[in-house]
């Protein structure tokens, strides 16, 4: 709309200029023809003309062929107060694939990720699907209340009309809580489009939420003499139900001695480790 207005005004301007160059109307009728004159003397050669103006720039060349890729960036923000995020699995895939399903037992990849923090098996499992397109392992810890690095993923442009985003990342001061996205629809994004997701928190259902130093890998357990890899993945599935569901939050030892006794006296977590949804923000942008 704006462009057409500009074009229109340019045209009007040009036509005004053309009118200004026309006949001024003061010229009278032509007079009678006079007698033929004598031939004049030959003139001198004229001076050389001035150099012509430079030619206009040529049109831009067409974009090179790069396999017709669609390129996306993904940035994760940790919205919690005291729950660092373990490295994140960031996966783009077609519809039909799920890394996990609410109400169903978690895969081993989800269990290892949610209990110990390593997302590489979640990515491996996705790569075994025919719906897989691309993935990144963010590789580092994302501290609480901070924005993560921008990750870049590339998929064939033909798949941009049927695209899903799956992300999993562990809340490390928990037994088996993770946040992310479960096959969020990011189809049909135009170049320059962004989508923002505020994410919920799941319980992998693979480990009892004892909140002890020996069962959580994060710094809270570390401060209590546990934590680390030894306190991460344990193949035993001893949760109330072996099924992925939304997390109820950590109980912590707060109020364990209050008359309410609602706290969990054996928890090494404190009230600061509590969280509410959403626990992360995910922004995906198509850049090409």
């Amino acid at each position, binding site marked *: 709309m704006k462009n057409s207005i500009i074009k229109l005004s340019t045209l009007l301007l040009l036509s005004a200029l053309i009118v200004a160059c026309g006949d001024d109307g003061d010229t009278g009728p032509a007079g009678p023809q006079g007698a033929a004159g004598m031939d004049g003397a030959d003139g001198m050669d004229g001076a050389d003309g001035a150099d012509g103006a430079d030619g206009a720039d040529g049109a831009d060349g067409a974009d090179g062929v790069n396999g017709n890729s669609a390129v996306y960036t993904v940035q994760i*923000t*940790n*919205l*919690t*107060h*005291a729950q660092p995020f373990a490295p994140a699995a960031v996966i783009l895939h077609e519809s039909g694939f799920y890394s996990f399903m609410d109400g169903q037992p978690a895969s081993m990849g989800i269990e290892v990720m949610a209990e110990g923090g390593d997302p590489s098996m979640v990515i491996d499992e996705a790569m075994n699907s025919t719906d897989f397109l691309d993935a990144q392992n963010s590789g580092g810890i994302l501290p*609480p*209340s*901070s*924005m993560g690095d921008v990750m870049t993923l590339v998929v064939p442009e033909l798949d941009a009309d049927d695209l899903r985003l799956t992300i999993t990342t562990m809340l490390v001061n928990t037994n088996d809580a993770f946040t992310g996205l479960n096959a969020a629809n990011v189809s049909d994004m135009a170049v320059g489009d962004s989508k923002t997701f*505020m994410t919920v928190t799941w319980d992998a259902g693979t480990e009892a939420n004892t909140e002890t130093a020996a069962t959580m890998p994060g710094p809270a357990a570390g401060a209590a003499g546990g934590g680390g890899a030894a306190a991460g993945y344990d193949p035993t599935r001893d949760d109330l139900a072996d099924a992925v569901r939304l997390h109820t939050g950590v109980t912590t030892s*707060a*109020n364990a001695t*209050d*008359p*309410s006794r*609602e706290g969990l006296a054996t928890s090494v977590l404190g*009230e*600061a480790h*509590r*969280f*509410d*949804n*959403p*626990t992360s*923000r995910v922004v995906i942008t198509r850049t090409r």
Partner: protein
Amino acid sequence: MKFSKLAGATLFALASVSTTQAVTLDIEITNLTQAQSFTPRLVVAHDATVDAFEVGETASTALAWLAEAGVIDDAQEPASSGENFEAVLGPVDTDNGSNTWHRFGGLVAPKATLSYPFDTMDKPYLSILSMMIPTNDAFVGLDSIMIPTEPGTYTYYLNAYDAGTELNDELNSARTDVVEAGTGNALGGYGVPGVAGGGAPTRIVDLGMGGTGVAATVMSGEVEDGTDGPVHIHRNALGDTDNAGGASDLDSTVHRWLNPVARVVITVPAS
């Protein structure tokens, strides 16, 4: 109710005759919590250069005034002059170039709904902020949504954020047995520890008195006024069930919430 709304809308329509294309939205806000009241609402229409709050970034002083004391402008609290959102944004109800804003006064009681007309003066984004009381520095926020242009009704659910400018000690500001460490200042609003707004007329229960502190602990009648990081999603009040003791002066069976804490319905009128 309907008649007064209509009259308000007509008044605004007349007032905005001189400005072309101005859109007056109807903004309805509902408090979804059971025991948290919302302080006067800051409603800002703005361009991309204005960011009232950003998760992962340290709160501005203006945000601290709003989140710790519910203060937006000089008229509410002269001591905030030069530091509040009025100082950051410019005069109220004015096209300040990058923004226009209004303070919708009064409290939104738990479970209550209020609605207002708001002239966006053609700014593309909308943000809403309001302190939740009784808390230390919790606020409900609508974070720079793009204002819809198609006539219709649009619904948004808002989360509770922690401004991070005050430790969540959960101590009743009415207490005289506890003061700020170092200064001896009484507990209360901006710049000092303690939960503001405990005595609000919209309160559900009276706060307790004998708590020893949650995220900051009372030592010899003093409590520190610390910070707890960049703006983030609030981890919820803790509370306890001991009104005369325990850690908190809030009640765990009354004052807690889960997100979302507010619903905002924006109506874009047919032009």
